[in-house]
């Protein structure tokens, strides 16, 4: 078995480490990716873990579409597009692999405009409010799900 995973990051996540660290922490996206890459080293079944980030909604949509062909699982932190993007919702619906919506903070505890997620109904599961550690938890649970462990 050769598992390919894609972690998609939306707008402003390139600023991790410097933007409102009291909410999002001091780790950069590169730090988080390094820890996730180290984690998958422990799983010989995982052949590829790709991290991407874009501030552009359409680019996120394109990456999800491209993943349809050969990616087994998508973890998506769509940032603020979570609360606005029907296009990302539709792309996720078209993607038949496993999908997890991820947030560093818990949007439901923040401003009311973050209480609605357009993505949550189109994914298998949601992880929020576990800080940047949520990325590693998401990768770990995604692999477990793909390996059909309960």
């Amino acid at each position, binding site marked *: 078995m050769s598992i390919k995973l894609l972690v998609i990051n939306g707008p402003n996540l390139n600023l991790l480490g410097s933007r409102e660290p009291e909410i999002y922490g001091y780790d950069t996206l590169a730090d988080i990716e390094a820890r996730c890459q180290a984690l998958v080293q422990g799983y010989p079944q995982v052949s590829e873990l790709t991290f991407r980030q874009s501030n552009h909604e359409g680019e996120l949509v394109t990456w999800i579409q491209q993943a349809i062909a050969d990616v087994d699982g998508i973890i998506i932190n769509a940032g603020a597009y979570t609360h606005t993007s029907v296009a990302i919702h539709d792309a996720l619906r078209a993607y038949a692999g496993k999908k997890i919506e991820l947030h560093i903070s818990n949007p439901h*505890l923040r401003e009311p405009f973050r209480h609605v*997620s357009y993505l949550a109904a189109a994914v298998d*599961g*949601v992880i929020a409010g576990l800080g940047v550690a949520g990325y590693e938890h998401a990768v*770990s649970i995604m692999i477990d*799900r793909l390996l059909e462990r309960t």
Partner: protein
Amino acid sequence: MKVLMLNGPGLASAIQQAGYDHVSLELIEQTCIRTCQDLALEPDFRQSADDQQIVQWLRQDLTSASALLINPLSTQAAEAAGYAAALVRALDEHAPATLPIIEVHLSNPFVDAQAQPLRPTGCNVGLLCGFGLRGYVLAIQALHRQLAANS
């Protein structure tokens, strides 16, 4: 360090609705206890069909816990009686701001708007939805990680 794990009313029907036929309350309990023990945490696993009991446990026992895992669940009767609001009130009144809390749902409640997540104002709550039994394991591991980071 004690992890208080509370499961609200309607768990059996939630398991059934989620299609987790291989999962039972006993299996969840055994899995949670074993996961805690593996991490040198003291498990305190509880379930009640009475929503008021869950609220009372939060009021009575939150201060003696090092972390909280809660699958609030609900029933129509509990909802009508203001269960969700009572949970939030109990958390706001009794949960220290630094208490690691994770809310777990077996299935993804956002698919058909089955449940709204808890929205306390004075404490952080992590959210894990849609991962079945594995969500409980992950929640305990995440709580352990938060406790280690806080100490």
